[in-house]
C-alpha cells in the first residue's frame, strides 16, 4: 500500500493538476504577438481590430511587434505584389518558431480581383498559411474569428509532436 501523500492544509485549495501541453498551449495561444505588417486596405481593418472598439487585446494579441524577431503571428493583410513577395518571404523566415500565418482578405488568399502580371496569386504560394479569412476587406469580427480559430489550432498541438522542438530539421 502506497504511502498517502500528505498535503498541508494551506495548499489544498491551491494545487491544479494539468498536462504540460495544456498549460503550455494556454500560455502560447493567449499571447500571440502579431507582426506589424500591412500591405493594403485590409491593414485598415486590422488596425480597427486592434483599436478600442473591436479590441483584439481581449484575445491576447494586442502586442503588434515592429520586429519579426519578436513576433509569432504574421497577418498578411492585403495584396502581395510580386515586388513585395521576396520581402514577405524574408520577414517570415526572420520570425522565430513557432510561427503562424493568417491570410487576411481575398488578395492574400488568391490574388483577389488582381488577375495581373504584378500580383502574387495567393500568399500560400510562398509561405504556409494556417487560417484564411475571406472578405474584401474582412470585417474586424472576421479577423477576431480567425484568431480564435488559430487559438483552437494551437490548442490541438502537442509539445511532443511539433516540428520546431525536434533535434533534426523538420
Amino acid at each position, binding site marked *: 500500500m502506497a504511502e498517502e501523500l500528505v498535503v498541508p492544509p494551506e495548499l489544498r485549495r491551491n494545487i491544479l493538476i494539468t498536462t504540460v501541453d495544456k498549460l503550455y498551449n494556454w500560455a502560447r495561444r493567449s499571447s500571440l504577438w502579431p507582426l506589424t505588417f500591412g500591405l493594403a486596405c485590409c491593414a485598415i481593418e486590422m488596425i480597427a481590430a486592434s483599436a478600442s472598439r473591436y479590441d483584439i487585446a481581449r484575445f491576447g494579441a494586442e502586442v503588434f511587434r515592429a520586429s519579426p524577431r519578436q513576433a509569432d503571428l504574421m497577418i498578411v493583410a492585403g495584396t502581395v505584389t*510580386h*515586388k513585395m*513577395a*521576396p520581402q514577405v518571404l*524574408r520577414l517570415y523566415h526572420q520570425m522565430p518558431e513557432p510561427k503562424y500565418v493568417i491570410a487576411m482578405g481575398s488578395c492574400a488568399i488568391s*490574388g483577389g480581383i488582381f*488577375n*495581373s*502580371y*504584378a*500580383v*502574387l*496569386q495567393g500568399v500560400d*504560394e*510562398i509561405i504556409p498559411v494556417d487560417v484564411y479569412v475571406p472578405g474584401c476587406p474582412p470585417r474586424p469580427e472576421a479577423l477576431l474569428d480567425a484568431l480564435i480559430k488559430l487559438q483552437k489550432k494551437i490548442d490541438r498541438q502537442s509539445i511532443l509532436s511539433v516540428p520546431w522542438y525536434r533535434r533534426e530539421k523538420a
Partner: protein
Amino acid sequence: MSEEVLQLLKEKFPEAVVEIPEGTKDPTAVIRRENIREVALFLRDEIGFNYLSFMAGVDYPEHFEVVYYLYSMGREPQRSNLGPLALKVYVEDKANPSLPTVSDIWPSAFQQEQEIYDMFGITFEGHPDLRRIFMWEGFPGWPLRKDFENRTFTFQELEPTRPKPPYW
C-alpha cells in the same frame, strides 16, 4: 488663350508642328520627335508654361505616342492661367522607341519618364537616371504595351529575373 499659343507655335516652328488636330477637348499640338526640346524650351521660357502636369504613353498599332500636359503657374498676371496645353509626340520606331528627354526642362518629367520607360519601354535620351520604377530590372516585358500578354505569374516563374542583393 491656349489657342493663340497654338497659332504662335505654328508660325514660329512651321516644320516642328506636324498637326493641330481639330475637335480635341484641350488645345493640342502634335510635335515632331526631333523638335520637342526646342518647342518645350520656347513654351517654358517665352510663353510661361512652367509646369508639366503629367506625361503619358500611348500604344497605337502604328506608333507610340507620348503626351505632355502643360500649365502655367506664372507670377505675372498676363502669363498665369495658361493651359492646359497638350503636346503629342509620335514615336514611329516601334522596335526601338526613343525620344529626347525633357526632364531637365521640367523636373516633374523625371519620374514620369521613368514610369513611361518602365511601362512602355520607351527610352528617353539624356535622362539622368532612366530605370524601371514599378517593376524591377529584368522583369520580362513592358506591361502597358498592347502586345504584352497580361497573365499571372507564379513566384517561382519570376524568381530568376529578380535582382539579388548581396545580403539576400
